[in-house]
């Protein structure tokens, strides 16, 4: 609970430097996603799927991760709306642009996967899949690894409201709450109100997704994910619980979905609350930044993305034969069939 001093403070005691850092990362994520959308519509990439609208919440997550490689650090089992998390953890726009354009230099998948599907061993972002909700099943495994390892590292998993209808969400709840081995998993559900085109309110009878935690007597909270400060504090509290208690926590964040589901729904701007615009108004009102300063952040970010995009456009696409790399980590035997049928 905020004390008397912070109750009137819209930023609940968060320092100016942190607030501006959060803003900068939110802008970076938004500008990058909007560039991806343009690329998908101009033939400079194919399918787009991403997370514009989730920046406030996702930056709060990414900045508070215990970052590193191996089970003594946090594992992230992410879904495809997580660009702001990855950027907050130090992933650069050019790395993501490479995946959007499917060039050979795409370090996450060698031009094989959709944009926003990372695999980064150095910071424990495990391979991401376009399949809905399977990340909640793999989170069980990284959660066990964290639970078996001394320290305070935890597993994070995120997904959308629609995905909670899948069995994997419930698998994660069951496994994380086994009495013989509780798992330190922060289960995050970003509720944007839609599963592709179907409304949450028409397909789900539960009042809140976080109510699923009641069955297991585990802590949970539903928050306004469009508010970076509320998000920051909620993520901090949830992470602290998982780290200390070595048990799971369910956090539901209500966020806007500003460009629909993906390319499949047109990727056009939708008039919902914009977390960045709301945050900028608050920053200006509180005199923590001027309009000109914030505009410069946008300008500089767009210039950075422009430069990175131009560089990526000059990079080569993968060689066709590269499909045979990584089928097995120790290579293919010479006799492995590669002709695609009869010669």
């Amino acid at each position, binding site marked *: 609970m905020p004390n008397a001093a912070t109750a009137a403070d819209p930023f609940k005691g968060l320092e100016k430097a942190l607030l501006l850092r959060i803003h900068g990362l939110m802008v970076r994520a938004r500008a990058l996603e909007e560039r991806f959308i343009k690329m998908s519509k101009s033939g400079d990439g194919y399918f787009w799927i991403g997370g514009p609208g989730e920046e406030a919440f996702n930056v709060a997550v990414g900045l508070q991760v215990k970052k590193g490689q191996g089970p003594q650090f946090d594992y992230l089992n992410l879904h495809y709306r997580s660009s702001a998390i990855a950027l907050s953890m130090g992933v650069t726009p050019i790395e993501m642009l490479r995946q959007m354009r499917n060039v050979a230099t795409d370090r996450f998948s060698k031009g094989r996967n959709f944009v926003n599907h990372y695999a980064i061993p150095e910071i424990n972002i495990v*391979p991401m899949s376009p*399949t809905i909700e399977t990340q909640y099943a793999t*989170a069980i*495994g990284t959660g066990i690894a964290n639970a*078996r390892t001394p320290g305070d590292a935890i597993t994070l998993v995120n997904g959308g409201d629609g995905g909670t209808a899948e069995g994997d969400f419930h*698998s994660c709840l069951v496994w994380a709450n086994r009495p013989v081995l509780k798992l330190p998993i922060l289960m995050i559900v970003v509720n944007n109100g839609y599963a592709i085109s179907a409304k949450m309110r028409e397909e789900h009878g539960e009042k809140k997704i976080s109510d699923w935690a009641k069955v297991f007597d585990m802590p949970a909270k539903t928050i306004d994910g469009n508010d970076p400060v509320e998000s920051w504090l909620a993520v901090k509290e949830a992470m602290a619980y998982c780290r200390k208690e070595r048990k799971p926590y369910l956090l539901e964040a209500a966020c806007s979905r500003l460009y629909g589901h993906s390319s499949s729904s047109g990727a056009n701007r939708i008039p919902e609350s914009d977390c960045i615009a709301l945050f900028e108004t608050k920053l200006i009102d509180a005199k923590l930044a001027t309009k000109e300063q914030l505009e410069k952040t946008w300008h500089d970010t767009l210039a950075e993305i422009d430069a990175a995009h131009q560089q990526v456009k000059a990079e080569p696409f993968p060689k066709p034969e590269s499909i045979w790399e990584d089928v*097995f980590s120790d290579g293919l035997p010479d006799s492995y069939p590669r002709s695609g049928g009869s010669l």
Partner: protein
Amino acid sequence: MANMAQAIRMALHYGEENLGVREIFGEDVGPPLGGVFTATQGLKTAWNAPLDERGILGAALGLAWAGFRPVAEVQFVDYIFNAVDMLKLIANSTWTSGGLYKTPLVVMTPTGSGIHGSIYHSHSFDSIATKLHGMKVVCPSTPIDAYGLMISAIKDDNPVLFLKPKALLRTRGAELIPGEPADEKELKAMIDAPIGDRSKWKPKWPKVGDYSVPIGKAKISHAGTDVTVVTHGRMAPIALEAAKELESEGSIEVIDMRSLIPYDWDAIKASIKKTGRVLFLNEETEITNFGEHLIRRTVDEMFYDLKVRPRLLCGKATPGIGLATVLENFTQPQKPDVLRMLREILSDPA
């Protein structure tokens, strides 16, 4: 002299002690049962999972990414169908991550018929397994091969689907596993859990050794010159018996594939080149059978080496395997069917 279940158990024990295996889990895998076929009895890192195949496979994949080299069991392969996309994820994550993440895990699961298992305990999964590109798939037919393949599977940095032929889990072979006592009663007393209260029981493991069967290498279990039989798993001992019975009528070469992916095409090719006559034998169903792929490849690459048309003998394409003995035996190849087919191939004019 171990049976196949004991051989797998000893390989897992070796893995715990020497190869970094820290998590062996699945439905009824831990105490008190130690697996419905007893393949995990007494193992110090074996534990029971919820009845959730997707969770089991997801847990294995997450653990593999974290470097834990897990061994997960799906209790019967018949239960794996609700988790096929988890298998696909296991198989493809090294490729989709551009090789950044290795996937060192083993999924073991009993496959096939022969235990009167009716509709949901008799499935063969072998052909579907071979479509999980990126997954290595092995299926032994003897205890020594089960031991050696499990050790190779644990050591492998790729995901390995270890198919255990249900009907062979209680069978014994001719070769001793390095370090095991020759007397099967002595071994049983050492590593089989007692009937009744097991809460204080602990196994006395023999000092088994590092014996690997390379994944991707077939075994010629019976040398011959007239007909090649390419088989694996439950059908391998049937083919072997048939080859011995037919010794006065023809010389049959039996290739026990042991690995389905990658498969030992060089061994198959060399044998067919020698015999010009080939039977592909397995217990999968007929439509889109793995043996059909091998026939296509044989025809494409060895057309002029063939003396007669290549044959496939396999399960009939029905929705399931009926419980009545006559139904199961009619659905799946039996030794008389193999003998009949081999005689036909032998007598076919070149």
